[in-house]
């Protein structure tokens, strides 16, 4: 059993500041996660060289892999820090911010773009209002089961990090916003906006940017069926592109 936990953290004081590495050593306890280590640093902000420093800045909330906030690159892989258990990680543990988003400070990045992508693809059901007008449409349990899988996306950004096509040049909106189109089109009411969603995928940065690297599904902490969703939507957008005008 190791006596110490050794962390190497990529830090940056602000968006326009240079990055630098800082190392920390923390007393070992069983069953810790990366969050607990960062909390230890808050309680004793001293680096491995014994020098006083500032506590590391990072985002987190639920600590049970539901909110998606604490996503960072841990030993080279994008994942949530709450479920990154120290006992299962090779040391030194290397923490870096997600690279596909602008750094705000240390491990905190700006993921607002992902929420904007959800606007673009109309990732919602158009309802008449919140007042009480009875139940929604019936849905078979079979459809529910796979649509539910897609609706578990936390917008954490792991798939964006893993996708080689997500970069400033392509403007690719990434796998998960596209998968949400499939989820909302599957809903009987949501299907009313099916064409608008497909068209939203057909412009610049849309589904044509997908290079079929298939990294996204492996990277997804919730195991969303992203590859199947992308394949299906490739086909649907193509058909819509060819025959869509006939329906007008």
């Amino acid at each position, binding site marked *: 059993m190791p006596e110490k936990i050794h962390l190497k953290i990529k830090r940056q004081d602000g968006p326009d500041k240079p990055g630098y590495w800082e190392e920390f050593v923390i007393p070992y306890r069983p069953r810790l996660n990366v969050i607990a280590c960062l909390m230890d640093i808050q309680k004793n902000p001293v680096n491995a060289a014994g020098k006083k420093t*500032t506590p590391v800045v990072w985002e987190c909330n639920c600590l049970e892999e539901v909110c998606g906030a604490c996503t960072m690159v841990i030993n080279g892989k994008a994942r949530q820090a709450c479920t990154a258990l120290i006992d299962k990680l090779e040391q030194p543990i290397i923490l870096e911010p997600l690279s596909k988003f602008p750094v705000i400070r240390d491990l905190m990045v700006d993921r607002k773009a992902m929420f904007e992508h959800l606007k673009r693809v109309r990732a*919602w059901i158009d309802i008449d209002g919140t007042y009480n007008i009875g139940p929604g449409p019936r849905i078979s349990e079979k459809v529910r089961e796979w649509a539910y899988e897609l609706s578990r996306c936390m917008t954490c950004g792991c798939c964006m990090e893993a996708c080689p096509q997500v970069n400033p040049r392509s403007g690719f909106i990434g796998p998960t916003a596209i998968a949400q189109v499939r989820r909302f089109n599957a809903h009987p009411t949501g299907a009313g906006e099916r064409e608008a969603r497909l068209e939203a995928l057909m412009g610049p940065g849309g589904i044509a940017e997908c290079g079929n690297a298939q990294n996204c599904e492996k990277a997804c902490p919730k195991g969303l069926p992203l590859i199947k969703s992308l394949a299906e939507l490739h086909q649907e957008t193509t058909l819509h592109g060819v025959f869509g005008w006939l329906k007008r």
Partner: protein
Amino acid sequence: MAKPKIVVIGGGLAGLMATLKAAEEGAEVEVYSLVPPKRSHSATAQGGINGAIDTKGEGDSPQKHFEETIYGGDFLANQPPVKNFCEAAPGIIYMFDRMGVMFNRTPEGLIDLRRAGGTKYSRVAFAGGTTGQQMMYALDEQVRKLEAEGGVRVYFPWEFLSAVIDDGGICRGVVVQDLISMEIHAVRADAVIIATGGIGYLFGRSTNGIMNTGSAQSALYQQGACYANGEFIQIHPTAIPGEDKCRLMSETCRGEGGRIWVYKDGKPWYFLEEWYPKYGNLVPRDIATRAIFKVCVEMGLGIDGQNKVYLDLSHIDPKHLERRLSGILDIYEIFVGEDPRKVPMQIFPAVHFTMGGLWVDYNHMTNIPGLFAAGECEYQYHGANRLGGNGMPACTYAGGVAGQKAVEYARGRQEKSPPRPELLEAEKKRQEEMEARIRSMEGPENPYLLHQELGEWMNNNVTVVRYNDRLKETDNKILELMDRYRRIGIADKSGWSNQVVPFTRRLWHMLQLARVITIGALLRNESRGAHYKPEFPERDDVNWLKTTKAYFTPDGPRFEYEPVDTSLLEPRPRRYD
């Protein structure tokens, strides 16, 4: 006429429901949230949402839901709003259904139901084991649509610092801080809705997230808002103890047939089933928690002599578990490394929910006109103990009422002129000075360590079993921590995305609120719902069928007591055996 401007603080279920309702009523809405609404703590609610839609043909009804909620809350809740909430609950489920929440279905494609504690009816609609996440996302999507259309603006990560209150005691706006640039702003509002959720982080380790500090409620309490029933803290019977937090294992594990046991004389002993034959494993949370406490702490029968019992699902078909509990079981497997489909889980009670909160009237307005509150941050629906599955519908209902009533209030207000700019400026200045004071603190104490100490004391003394001498000692400890607070040293002086300064500010608010909870518990010499004192083991309706109302004074909280509205259901002894 100009659109009324409503400011909503908090982007969870209650906050976003208030947003949608207020926007629907024609208001311009601004939402300020610590996190993107999608990451709000509502997303971690697991089991499901209660509503008497009776798709199982069991004869359930809103009236039964109402009676069980009042009984489950040990008659401490004012009854009329609870009745309204239970009558609205089926409509709330249907609203989420229309928003596209992927609720589990019956073979006919209707909404499936399961059971929770404190009822004999299947009343919980659910979406796998991540119902809160699904419902949170549905509201988030609807608000995003409004945002895209321009009716609503959402700001994150921004924190509420205080209310702007005019000379007439009326709330005219808020002071909020952008937690990235650290800029502090005063924002005018015709009405403000507080929807800032729970306070679990005040207890250190709980099932809550790290932002559930209750600091907004506490800041308002210090500005004159009344805080009600603070001493009623729900301890959830089944959580995985952890170093950084305790992770919830939903009550619906038991709703799906999960059994709680320990070894006694070498054989599994299903103590809840033996002690409470009528409800078995589905007794309400306060009852189950005390039973587990008794077995572990008093009888010493916990697993390996430790404070743990088994929660067993291993006898249930794994496919059934997958369809109905998957998200939850994954959490256990990830953090403990064992498959709960095969081996019994090891769990122990943990702080989970506050029944108490900001006092509100039946329109969800606090005692400060123009300031509304909805959701876990207020006290309205759960009495002395919340039933499983009632959290989400109650906060959604509350958000809807608050949204509507806030707009009504804003439209009906006599004073139509906007607040004087000096008023907003003065409150902003007060907050900027407070921030500067914190930032300049130099001393040997660390705010995170003080918080840890506070959490340990609160967890050890102000949770399942409460003794007056230990409550008194805890209050003394809090006073000591408040004294040591003044000797904190701030390790990060940066003016950009500084997390230490806001945490230190929240810590002060947590300390203030901890006193309300602790002294409230000390004064209430009876046992009711989640509040249990061995020295006073019985419920005492003659003296204590009353709402606790705490008001801030510089010398500590001042308490008043208000009779409970029991006009619909005669109080009777609460028993589940």
